[in-house]
């Protein structure tokens, strides 16, 4: 019973935060709701006994990524008039309706669906007796997924280099003639 209560309260908050992230006019507010979202999700993970994931969710997502967003928002220091929204036209309305309906259908199917799958051996008890969630995840990560793990490190390094290269300030002048022309038409 307490588990259900926990779930429903967390789920309600997550839904609310998600909506706020998408709808806030100010990016800073959005980012803050995103952080909330991430923390709440971490809570859900923990309730599912995925402690390791819950931890890195907080560390990496909330601690690193959203902070990065914050920095960028402040760095750009957008003018209020640029926080405009999409003008809603006929196609947009259509797509909006279609998307919502599609998701509603999927959600409805999920509510009454009965997911199936091949059960593995790592039940909660097995994990606890084997040395806890973090230990077992680590074992899998460094044995079965060693190669992808190493590749992931390569990916991170590439991303670091790429970010530096892309964000590097190498052009003194802000826009060329062609760009301006393009903007004027845009």
């Amino acid at each position, binding site marked *: 019973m307490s588990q259900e209560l926990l779930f429903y309260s967390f789920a309600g908050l997550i839904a609310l935060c*998600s909506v706020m992230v998408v709808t806030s006019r100010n990016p800073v507010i959005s980012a803050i709701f995103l952080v909330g979202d*991430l923390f709440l999700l971490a809570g859900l993970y923990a309730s599912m006994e995925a402690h390791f994931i819950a931890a890195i969710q907080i560390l990496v997502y909330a601690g690193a990524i959203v902070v990065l967003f914050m920095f960028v928002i402040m760095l*750009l220091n957008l003018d209020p008039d640029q926080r405009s929204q999409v003008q809603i036209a006929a196609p947009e309305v259509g797509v909006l309706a279609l998307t919502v309906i599609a*998701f509603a259908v999927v959600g409805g199917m999920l509510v009454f669906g009965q997911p199936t799958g091949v059960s593995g*051996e790592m039940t909660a008890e097995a994990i606890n007796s084997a040395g806890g969630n973090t230990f077992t995840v680590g074992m899998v990560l460094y044995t079965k997924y060693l190669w992808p793990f190493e590749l992931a490190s390569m990916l991170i390094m590439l*991303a670091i280099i790429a*970010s530096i290269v892309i964000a590097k300030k190498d052009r003194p002048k802000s826009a060329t003639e062609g760009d301006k022309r393009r903007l004027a038409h*845009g």
Partner: protein
Amino acid sequence: MVSINHYLVLATFMFLCGTLGVLFRRNLLLVLMSIELMLNSVNLVFVSGSRLLGNLDGQVMVFFIITVAACEAGVGLAMVIALFRRYGTVDTNFLRILRG
């Protein structure tokens, strides 16, 4: 009893929010955040699936997704900065380089 269906419905809703954000927000930063939201909904599915099936592969996947998300956010934000430097805006209505 909280079944997996609960988690899946929640994830669906989050994904919907993310999708709508990507489609209808004009601020590139918001677009990126919405993408994070979508990624997180997928993570939720993975973790709940992992618990249901008693298989840790799902959690490992989440680990990788977080890695990729970090990279994506890094590169994406770098591009946002570069775009802002060059065009002075991050409004997608004005960024139409792909126009044919």
